[in-house]
């Protein structure tokens, strides 16, 4: 019991630190990659190659004055960013960073995940469905027109893509026969699921990008019409928490993509240890995120909703049934 508590606390500290660092450098990564794609230099003044830019941004946000509309709902206004952040972080508990054997430190066997439950990925779906509240309540509590409309749009978008997000993973469940992420990665030892289940992977990535409200689906924060969407009235660290939640959600979507479709910790020829393969794949998926943002224009809101309902939903159902037929047909 004590051992579980101590080990979990250490893991929690590592994940907290790792995800915060990932968040900080993902913002820099995004700015630099976008700049290069647009033939600019990007941030390069603070520290060597601009590597201290995230620290400078963090310190600035920390010392910002607290301010917001006087008519805001004070409790919900503060609770919303905490909820968003907690949901984003907690999703990482189910991600196995490496495997298949446990890490042995001083004679203690330590698993590469915080928890590996029977419901596995379904727990991630439960968390995404709670994530809607953070964003909606931020828009509602601010009592500002931009915030409210941004929050409303954002939550309607999130619930619309949640179905496709869930259904696009059903082919993986069928093939692996489990929701446990460890089982799913182990089932990909020879073939990554991205190859046989390519359509499902593409649907998952589109739904995942829309679910995290990122370009080209960043309608809730369409600067030209809604300023900053649901977090228009947030500043300083309160804004930073939403910012963190958004980027950590990107990391989560990339991690789940890695585990579900890209073979998790498995790499060809066994050149690198598992965690490095995992990291490489997550960074590769994150690069796609940034690449799309630098390349594609934003969709119109009605087109966005129709893409989710009229294209992704039927396609993911079709992919699911096709996988079922093929899996049963080749089964002996």
């Amino acid at each position, binding site marked *: *019991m004590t051992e579980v508590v101590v080990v979990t606390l250490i893991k929690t500290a590592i994940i907290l630190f790792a995800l915060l660092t990932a968040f900080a450098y993902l913002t820099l990564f995004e700015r630099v990659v976008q700049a290069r794609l647009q033939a600019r230099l990007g941030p390069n003044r603070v520290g060597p190659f601009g590597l201290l830019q995230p620290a400078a941004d963090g310190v600035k946000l920390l010392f910002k004055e607290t301010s917001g509309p006087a008519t805001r709902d004070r409790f919900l206004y503060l609770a919303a960013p905490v909820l968003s952040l907690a949901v984003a972080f907690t999703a990482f508990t189910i991600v196995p960073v490496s495997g298949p054997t446990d890490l042995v430190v001083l004679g203690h066997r330590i698993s590469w995940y915080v928890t590996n439950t*029977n*419901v596995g990925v*379904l*727990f991630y*779906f*439960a968390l995404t469905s*709670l994530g*809607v509240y953070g964003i*909606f309540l931020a828009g509602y509590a601010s009592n500002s027109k931009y915030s409210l409309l941004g929050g409303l749009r954002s939550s309607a978008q999130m619930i619309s893509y949640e179905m496709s997000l869930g259904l696009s993973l059903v082919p993986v469940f069928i093939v692996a026969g489990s929701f446990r992420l460890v089982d799913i990665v182990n089932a990909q030892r020879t073939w990554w699921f991205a190859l046989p289940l390519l359509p499902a992977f593409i649907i998952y990535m589109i739904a995942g990008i829309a679910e995290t409200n990122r370009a080209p689906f960043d309608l809730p924060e369409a600067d030209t019409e809604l300023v900053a969407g649901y977090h228009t009235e947030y500043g300083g660290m309160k804004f930073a928490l939403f910012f963190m939640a958004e980027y950590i959600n990107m990391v989560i979507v990339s991690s789940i993509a890695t585990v579900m479709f890209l073979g998790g910790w498995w790499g060809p020829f066994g050149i690198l240890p598992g965690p490095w393969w995992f990291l490489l794949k997550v960074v590769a998926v994150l690069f796609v995120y940034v690449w799309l943002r630098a390349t594609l224009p934003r969709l119109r809101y009605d087109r966005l909703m129709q893409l989710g309902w009229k294209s992704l939903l039927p396609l993911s159902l079709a992919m699911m049934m096709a996988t079922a037929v093929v899996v049963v047909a080749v089964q002996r």
Partner: protein
Amino acid sequence: MGGLGAAMVILFAFVAASMLVSAVGVVAFRRPIYNALALVANMLGLAVLFLLLNAQFLFVAQIIVYTGAVMVLFVFIIALLNPRADIRLQRPGAEWGFGIVFGVVFAALLLIILSTRALPGKPGPYTPEAIDAAGNVQTIGRALYTTFLFPVEVASVLLLVAAVGAVYLARRRIH
């Protein structure tokens, strides 16, 4: 397992107490959005209770469907349908009277049942060990798609009816 058992009792007491508080909140808060959020908290508590009973699939299903979908609709409507959402609800005393009467009757029933300990039952095939061995979701899936196949297919018809109803409701509002 002794430590875990004690932790579970403490956790149960904590969750049950917060569910009672949030249930009072559902009727006692003066602003509708807080009533709805209290109900969300209550449903999350219910999900944890499912988990403490080892109903892992119900735990996630409860969160995904009730807090993640049904209550989102509630919150949408409460927050946005009424432009003057800040009007405080008027509460005539009669509701409290009914509430107290039913609450006392229900509590008395519970007390009678619990004090007589007339809870018959013997272990069936679905012991916690058997479910863990076969997998929690797998056990539910096998039951749903063999024994309870007909209700499942009827549920899809029910969902179709719900879709028709939703469209009808929305159309009427427009015209």
